[in-house]
Structures are given as C-alpha cells and as structure tokens.
C-alpha cells in the first residue's frame, strides 16, 4: 500500500510526477466507483421505458439523455459498463492465468514441448485478435459467457509469449541456481522464486490486456456477437444509438465517451507503470 501511494509523489531523481499513472488511477478509479455504486443505485432503472421521454438530449434530469425507448442513457451506461468490465476482467483472468502457466512452464523447461507450444502460439498470434475471437465465438456460439471465454482464450498466446520471454531471462540467474542447488523443486522455483520477480512486466501487460479486452468486447458486441440484450453492453448500445445519429446525435456521445474513457484509463495506467520502474 505504501509502495502504491509512493507512486503519486514526485520522482526524487527527475523531480517529475508520473502524470500517466495519476490520470490513469483517477479515471479508472472513477469508473470503477460509479459501476460499484451502480450495483445498488442508478438514477433510473436501466430497463424502465418511458414513451413520453424518447430520444431526449442532455439535461439535468437525464445527464446523458434518453434512448429510443425512453430509457435513461446514463443508467444504461452504468449497467453496460458493468458488463463490459466484467467480461474484460474475466478475459484478462483467463488470458493472464493460462498464459502465465503455459509461458512459465514452456520457458523454464524448454525442449520439444516448448518448440511445439510456441509454434501454436505463433500460429495464433498470426491472427488479428478480433478475428481470433470471432473464430472462437463461432465455435462456442454467441452470448455473454461465450464471448468472455472466446476473448480469454484469444488473449492466452500474447501473455504466454511475454511470460516465456521473462522466464527465459531469469532462469539462469544466480538466485535460481542457488534455489536449484538447495534442492527446491522446479515448480516451486517457477512459481515462488521466478514469478514474483516478473510481476512488474506482468502487471503492465495486464493493464494493456484490460485496454484491449474492453476494445475487443465493445467491438464484438457492436457487431451484435457479444453479450445479448437485455444484458446490453456498451458496444450493443452504441450500435443501437448509431441508428438515431440523424435525429439525436448526442445519443451516441455519452456511450462512446464512456468507452473512450475506460480505454484511456487503462492505457494511462499501463503507460504509467512502464515509466514507474
């Protein structure tokens, strides 16, 4: 915690604050707080329709206006952000979890298993991530859980590659040799000795992972393949709002800006963490 707070202070060597980290924490923190509060309270029910208040602009009553069914856009955005964030978290958990295990084991042991796994990883990385998730969605079917799993699997290769590289770098260092001489088992060396030493890289990668997961989820649900209504995520809502661009242009703004802010928050965080070391 103390280390966490120290990041807001000026760097003693350069006399500069880490603006990226501070901005990232503020933006992401704000979004997470609003989403958490939204679990218990939103100004309106996200599904309550009001035929007398369709497609309104920004006002004090409806800060992001209302949609084509008279629902409060802000309440829906809070609700949609929750789904987008939940899917992103799940995606990163699968991607980072499996990727770390695969990358650490193949990097540490090497050999034919490593050779084979890296061929598959290369083949998967050759696919643009959105296409890879489309492949998995077409295999698993469309829906909230399926998309989370599909995205998660498509994130595994990049995590595996990064962790493998880091483990390769560390595995011949002195502290690993010492542990090996003391008779510590290989698995314990990997997960207890090496892994804590690569958390810096891992955390920054996880933040980029969040950044990409939010973008990918929004893209997929924008195409109508992601989470299905009534669990509308931000992408679905943006796709709906696009149809009313002509009659109520401000409708897309609140939703789009939320996606941008969410991505911006994570990208600032990852940028800041990279500069922090």
């Amino acid at each position, binding site marked *: 915690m103390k280390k966490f707070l120290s990041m807001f202070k000026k760097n003693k060597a350069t006399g500069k604050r880490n603006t990226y980290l501070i901005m990232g924490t503020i933006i992401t923190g704000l979004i997470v707080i609003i989403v958490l509060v939204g679990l218990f309270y939103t100004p309106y029910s996200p599904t309550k329709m009001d035929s007398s208040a369709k497609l309104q602009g920004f006002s004090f009553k409806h800060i992001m206006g209302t949609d084509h069914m008279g629902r409060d856009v802000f309440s829906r955005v809070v609700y949609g952000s929750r789904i987008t964030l939940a899917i992103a978290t799940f995606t990163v958990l699968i991607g980072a979890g499996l990727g770390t295990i695969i990358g650490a084991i193949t990097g540490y042991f090497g050999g034919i298993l490593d050779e084979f796994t890296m061929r598959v990883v290369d*083949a998967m990385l050759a696919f*643009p991530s*959105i*296409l890879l998730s489309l492949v998995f969605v077409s*295999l698993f079917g469309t829906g909230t859980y399926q998309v989370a799993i599909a995205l998660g699997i498509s994130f595994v290769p990049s995590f595996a590659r990064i962790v493998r590289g880091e483990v390769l770098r560390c595995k011949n260092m002195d502290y690993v040799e010492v542990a090996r001489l003391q008779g510590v088992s290989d698995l314990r060396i990997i997960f207890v000795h090496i892994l804590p030493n690569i958390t810096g890289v891992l955390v920054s990668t996880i933040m980029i992972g969040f950044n990409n997961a939010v973008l990918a989820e929004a893209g997929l649900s924008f195409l*109508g*393949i992601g989470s299905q209504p009534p669990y509308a995520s931000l992408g679905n809502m*943006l796709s709906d709002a696009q149809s009313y661009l002509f009659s109520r242009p401000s409708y897309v703004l609140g939703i*789009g800006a939320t996606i941008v802010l969410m991505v911006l928050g994570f990208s600032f965080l990852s940028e800041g963490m990279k500069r922090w070391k």
Partner: protein
Amino acid sequence: MRYIMKKVLSMALTLFVVSICVFFAFSLIPGDPVTRMFGTQATPELIEQYRQKMGLNDPLIVRYFRWFTSFIQGDFGTSYDYKVPVAGMIAEKIPITLTLAIMSFVMMVIISIPIGIYTAKHENGIADHILTVINQIIMAIPPFFSGIIMTFIFGIVFKLFKPGGFVSYTKDFWGFIEYLILPAVAIALPKAAMATKLLRGSVIDEAAKDYTRTAYSRGNTTNGVLYLHVLKNAMIPVITFMGMALADMVAGSIVIEQVFGIPGISRILLTSINNRDYPVVETIIMGIATMVLVINLLVDIIYRIIDPRIEVED
C-alpha cells in the same frame, strides 16, 4: 536467397498448422451439417444418403486431406445456407475489404512517419508534448466510434458524403474510393498514433548511439544524420509494427464495414457465424490467415533488405 527460402518454408508450415486447427475445430463442433441442410424434412435414410455422398462417414484425417487439397486448388466448398460455391460468394467482396485495408495502411504511413520524425526531432518541445497527449487519446478511440463521429460531422453536418451511399467499384471506381476515405481514416487513426509513438521512441533511442556521434563528427548536419543514418535503423521496429497493423486492418475493416454500411466480407462473415454456415467461415478465416502470413513474409524480406545483418536464425 537461403533466408527467403527458409521464411517461405516456415510460413507454409504455420499455414499448415492453422489449416489443421481450423478444420478440426470446426469438425468437432456438435451439430451435423446434413441435418442442418434439411432441417425438419430430414429422414434417417436421406441423412445417411447425403452423408455418404458428402463423404462425412470417412475418418477425420481423410476428410481433412480432401478438404485441404481441394482448398489449395481453389475449391472452397459449398455454403450450407445459400447452396452456392463459397468461392463465388466472396470473390467480389474481397477487393472491397482489401482496398479498404490498403487505403488505411497508406494513410497510417502518411500520417505517422512525418509526425513521428517531427516529434522526435523536437523532443520535449511544446508541439511534442501536445502531440504526445493527443496521440495517447487517439489510441483510446475505437475505430467504430470515430467512424460514427465522422459520419456525423462529414455526412450530416457538412453533407460531404452520403451515409450508406456506397457505390460498387464495378460501377464507379472513383466514387467507390471516395466513399472509402472516411472508413480508412477511422481504421488508420489509432494505428497511426501507435506508429508515431513507436517511431518517435525509436528515433530517440537510435540518436543516442555511438554511430550517430560518429556521423556528426564527420561533419554531417542534423538532417543529414537523421535521414541518412538514424532513420534507416529506427524504421526496423516500426516496419514490424506496420506489418502487424496491416494484418489488423484487414480484420479491423470487418467492424468498420458495419459502421459505414460497406458490403465487404464482413456481412457474409457475420451472418455465417450467426447461422453456423461453417464452409463460409472456414474459407474467410483461412483467407485472412493466408493474407496475414504473406504480409509477415514480406515484412521479413523487407527487413533483410534494410538490415543485411539479420541472419538466418536456427
């Protein structure tokens, strides 16, 4: 030459692995294509007859090689839904998606290289600081949102183009190109921002190296050092990124085609995914994968030309 041969071989191997993964993945999904074809009219005899005819009773390996050999010969199978050859379905759509991707790529290069060089040259200047912040923000705007915003500004406010008024390249080629400009910008912007950032960092790194000082001491001007020595080395990581970006753009155009109502391969891919029309999905995925791998190969070859130090790695 040996280098290129080796790269071509490794590409063929990867493509082979991809084809195995794609084929087996789609074969393992529950659901029988014949039952799907006939729906409620399916009788056991009819199903058996067609399974025999389509060779579905053969072992998976045999089916894979049959599929693979006909695939290389340009026979991509028949769509379950439309009952027409897949090749014909996508042949006229591919030029649209490909043109869009190439236009986005050209825009990314035109935007990122001058800005990247400028910001690196004036590191820590006011323009550099402003452009770096703008860069970071542009990276966070997904193409489908910037696409919508551009539709609004240029289509509804200024009425410079007609939203949804796509013209096919067979009818009016320049009208077609004109309609693709905004979608291409939408795809190019975030990639250009990333390329700018990368180029800036790379030029700054290279400028701190010894050979730069040597070049200066031989009486070169800043511009001379920058354009004759530094840039060539600084471009190497940028070219890797741009190769990946081109591959991403082919896939990224799928989303943008939806935003601007462009009838490229996106619509076919999406309906096929929703209807589980696997021959079509398989073909499009294999097609994009091949394109991506060819792009990677070209990047490797360009590498070798820029930097002959790159050896054949074992």
